[in-house]
């Protein structure tokens, strides 16, 4: 699977297979192509050359099937500033066909139950990451793609992320975790290292 | 009185000169851009062949 965009190739040669139910850890310096790899797997970015299959569905032709079963958590929170935390999640429910009743529980899990009615514009970066995490937990995606989920989080929030990963793995669901955080990802079944758009380790 | 047919050659000439000029300039520009693009591709390819070890 090769992905080149603009003049600078973001990801040159990456052939990769992940077993279901595994935790894959992706290491590498900033700009090594980790985000690009995750965005291509999560169908946020179409590969310029080459092809791939995620959860058995073709990357180019069956994107909606992949999107139904995948959640991509990137450093951009994709939230609406003028909406409250609850409203952001309720909209996500409408888009993904999830019952609205799941919202309170998801917010509670990330410790934001008390600010559910407040607008995201007043939130700190850490709180926004938590709302994005809550949105990811709204449904039980078969494939969880986490791109630097720990960035900007306090210790307590990092625990929540670990708990979410552990829960997903317990359910036999797959997680791909890209992070610098060396203390995290201990239980990874496989680790790959990336540098300048290539998988080197 | 013979109706004098207005010659109005001026307008016709102006139109033809403008058209010929515009088309001529465009053709020249196209060929120039084509030559420049070919040279740029050749230059890059040349540099690449010399820089990568055989």
């Amino acid at each position, binding site marked *: 699977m090769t992905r080149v965009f603009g003049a600078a190739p973001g990801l040159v040669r990456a052939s990769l297979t992940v077993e279901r139910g595994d935790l894959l850890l992706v290491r590498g310096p900033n700009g090594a192509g980790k985000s690009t790899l995750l965005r291509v797997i*999560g*169908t*946020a*970015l*179409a590969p310029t050359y080459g092809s791939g299959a995620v959860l058995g569905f073709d990357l180019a032709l069956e994107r*909606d*099937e992949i*999107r*139904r079963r995948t959640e*991509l958590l*990137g450093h*951009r*929170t*994709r*939230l*609406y*500033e*003028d*909406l409250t935390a609850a*409203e952001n999640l309720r*909209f*996500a429910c*409408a*888009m*993904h*066909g999830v019952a609205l009743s799941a919202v309170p529980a998801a917010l509670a899990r990330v410790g934001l139950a008390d600010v559910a009615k407040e*607008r995201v514009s007043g939130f700190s970066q850490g709180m*926004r990451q938590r709302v994005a995490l809550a949105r990811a937990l709204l449904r039980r995606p078969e494939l969880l793609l986490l791109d630097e989920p720990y960035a900007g989080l306090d210790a307590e929030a990092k625990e929540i992320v670990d708990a979410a990963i552990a829960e997903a793995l317990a359910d036999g669901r797959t997680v791909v975790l890209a992070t610098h955080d060396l203390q995290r990802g201990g239980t990874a079944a496989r680790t790959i290292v990336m540098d300048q758009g290539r998988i080197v380790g | 009185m013979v109706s004098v047919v207005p010659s109005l050659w001026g307008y016709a000439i102006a139109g033809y000169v403008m058209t010929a000029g515009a088309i001529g300039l465009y053709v020249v520009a196209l060929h120039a851009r084509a030559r420049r693009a070919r040279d740029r591709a050749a230059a890059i390819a040349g540099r690449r062949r010399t820089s990568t070890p055989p």
Partner: protein
Amino acid sequence: MTLVGQSVAIAAKDLRIEVRGRYALGSVLPFAGTLLVAFGLSLGPGRTLLAETAPGLLWLAVLFASVLSSRRAYEHEGEDGALEGLLLAPIDKAAVFIGKGIAIAVQLLALELAIVLLVSGLFDLSLAVAPLTLVAALFLGTIGLAAVGSLFGVLAEAPRAREAVLPLLVLPLATPVLIAGVRATALATAGRAGEAGSWLGLLLAFDLVFVSVGTLVFGFLLEE
């Protein structure tokens, strides 16, 4: 969730953000008001000329308001990359086009209410003569402008998009709406509403073309 359900959810979200941000009330309406006063200053103070050009001035204000509202509809998606969220949702991308179109249309209709009142006050446009035809013209024109704005507003979010790309795209394409809208409005306010039928038909044709084609091709604009 059906296409309709998704579209309504997106429209509701857009309108809630719009009400919270009060962009239409806060900046588009003042802009339209300034525009109308400027028209008056440039064409006035002779009342007859102003009364004659009033339909044109009204629709010019509506046209520019539609461009501003369309850009705004996608601008608030861009803040934290929310547009990518819509791309990743397993929904029919046409729902984004329709949902945003509805939101833009609703805002435009609200703005038009104010613009019409302003124009009738400033330029003696007689609204009571054939209100039904006038409302029909505004409604059909708004659907057309919302469709074009919803379709190309997403391009204004492109990394290298300059301010002018949206008006440059929308205004030429919206020529039929401008012409038919102005003619229908002029006929309605001049008591010759009976003759406005053909213009309303033209507006309807424009709407059908743009809503259907927009629904078909919008996915290509959003796709990564």
